[in-house]
């Protein structure tokens, strides 16, 4: 094993280099080294630590309530397409899927006037081999399945979701954070405090820019009419950014049903899936006032 030993003059020389105190020209004939002093040297006295308290969960919920209430502030008119698709899955001797699709143009005028115009309605049956055939009245077995296109638009601008409306009935928990450059996307789980209330649990994504909901996912532990409903699943509401505002994009739900309730007299589907799509938004369009005088509410 070899051990390298440095001489004392060499160590002194290295120490001087490290200290930046290299000796100047020597009169003794020893080597003269150049000293670099053209680069400015900044001296940072101390690191300044900036500390801010993370926004608490209660504060996030409170701000989300405010954000949601003001989500549509400033909109005087609104128009969008709403397309609803209901898919009924039948099992048993005659497995098939029945699809009902309706679309409508929905108009809103501040503060509370709504009206809509149907755009299209189609009904068809998808056979197990994928072929389509028209869904006629004869296929209904005396029970006409339809979608009420009456007074309800299914979208009240001022309505808050239940977990923000009556927050004391829910417990909340931050599940995840996505840190953006200038805001945070919180993923917050919620569940009803009472184990008996017919309220959904789920998770919601809140974007802190304006504290708006950008996605909701629900699950039901207590089912209404459990003698008919076996489960409720895929219950979501998706939002999309349109001209700087977060507006509904899609609502989905799937229910599984107890088919025996039909007692063999009425054919009950074993599952039903609903998708409602919102698109073709126009914010503050000029709308004919007469639109809201007939057929509106």
């Amino acid at each position: 094993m070899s051990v390298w030993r440095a001489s004392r003059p060499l160590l002194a020389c290295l120490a001087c280099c490290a200290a930046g105190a290299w000796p100047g020209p020597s009169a003794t004939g020893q080597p003269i080294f150049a000293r670099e002093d053209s680069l400015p040297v900044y001296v940072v006295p101390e690191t300044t630590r900036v500390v801010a308290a993370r926004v608490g969960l209660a504060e996030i919920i409170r701000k989300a309530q405010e954000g949601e209430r003001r989500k549509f502030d400033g909109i005087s008119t609104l128009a969008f397409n709403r397309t609803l698709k209901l898919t009924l899955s039948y099992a048993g001797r005659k497995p098939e899927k029945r699809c009902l699709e309706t679309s409508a143009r929905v108009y809103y005028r501040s503060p509370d006037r709504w009206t809509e115009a149907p755009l299209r309605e189609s009904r068809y049956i998808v056979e197990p081999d994928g072929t389509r055939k028209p869904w006629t009245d004869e296929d209904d077995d005396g029970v006409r399945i339809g979608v009420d296109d009456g007074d309800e638009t299914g979208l009240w601008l001022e309505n808050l979701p239940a977990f923000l409306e009556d927050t004391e009935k829910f417990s909340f928990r931050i599940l995840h954070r996505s840190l953006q450059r200038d805001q945070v996307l919180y993923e917050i789980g919620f569940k009803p405090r009472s184990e008996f209330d017919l309220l959904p649990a789920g998770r919601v994504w809140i974007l802190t820019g304006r504290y708006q909901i950008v996605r909701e996912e629900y699950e039901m532990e207590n089912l209404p009419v459990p003698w008919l409903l076996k489960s409720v699943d895929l219950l979501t509401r998706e939002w999309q950014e349109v001209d700087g505002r977060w507006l509904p994009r899609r609502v989905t739900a799937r229910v599984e049903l107890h088919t025996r309730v039909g007692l063999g007299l009425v054919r009950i589907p074993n599952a039903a899936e609903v998708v409602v799509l919102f698109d073709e938004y126009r914010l503050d369009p000029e709308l004919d006032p007469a639109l809201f005088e007939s057929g509106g509410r």
Partner: protein
Amino acid sequence: MVVTSLAVLGLAAGARAQPATFDTLGVRAVLERRQSVLDSLLLPESTQLDTAGTATLADSLDQGGAAAVALQRDSVEAAVRRAAKRFDLGFKPLALTTYNRVDGLRAGAGLEPRLVPHTRLELAAAYGFAREKWAWFAAFEAGRRTGPVLRLAWRDLVEPFGPNRGCRSQGALALIAGQDRRDYLRREGWDVGVWAWRRRAARLGARWFDTRDHAVAAATDFYFLGGDVPMQEPNPAVDSGTGRGLVIEGRRGDRLGRATVGGTVGFTGGLAGGDFEFVWQEMDVGLRQVVPGGTLWLAVEGANVGGSPPAQAAAYLGGDGNLRGYDRLEFAGRQRTSARLEYIVGLDLLRRTRIPVVQDLELQFIPFFDAGTTWGTVRAVEGSRGSLEGDARSSVGLGIQRALWIPGAEVVRLDVAYRTDGADSPWGFWLRIVALDEVFGSDED
């Protein structure tokens, strides 16, 4: 294997046991990831929406205005549906149908046709097989359902009086188990009222009435099961006569039902004429507060009757309506106050026992406490013990309820009450099936 649930993927709220984490993904990336997961779980048919051409059609409608929209409605046969809605016969097959010890089985039916927009007609008739008399009801309304609305009504009905109005299931329980826990009079006449607001959380209206009350006797004690039940009790006689006067009613509550306040003031007689001369005021306050492990519900009410009220208008205390465990109309006075406190346990205690079968019963427990008193001497029905003169009476008990979720019969509930005044038979039981809007003891019939 096809995965059909967000929960199965651990992406739904069931996965909330994991600690809060973070990343630096953009909002669009997060949302698109969730959307794609959802798309993979939905049926292919559900994600294939036919939106071709709708954008163009929407544009033309936006530009064309009301005329284009009207044309479009007609083109998709919406006009047929609207026409159908304009005239709706509104057949009500079981209108006025009930069972009680005065009418016996009262079987009826009704119509609620919508004539022209903002007008409604209610017609109903029923036959009481034990009383062997017809009962009927007619009303006409003009205005919005939520007000302002004008309402005229005519009736000749046997209806309950006093604080014990029971609930809508009362008729069925009377027939099956003899649980007729109300007292009745026959009231005929008309009233006309104007409601400025008639919403669930806010009501304000005034009503002029001209009605005649009659005493009616119990005509049947038939029921299917049990024995020694209220069905066998006589119906107390009321004072017959005409009441003519004005009543103003108001109710206000927050949208979430956390607090409600209601009040009624009215008079009969005087310049209005009639056989009765008295005034009355009633007020009630309800509060609901979520507390650890459940919800507290407190209801306080008070009533005052002045003048010469008939027996049916006295301020009664006792029975399901305000003092559980006590007899119906047991105490009476000119003034009454009562309070009801319930703690609605939000935890499924039986599930925590992990005892087979028991853990699946899903029974909710509701301890309660009722208290009240009356003051002043007043004419009351036979059997009433008169005024307490401020001496309070109370009862404690336990409510046990289970959700049924049958439309109109969402909850079945049993209250076991114990009266604390040292009576010989202190225990009382009250079984009922309650609709969702009656859970907190609404007096709607």
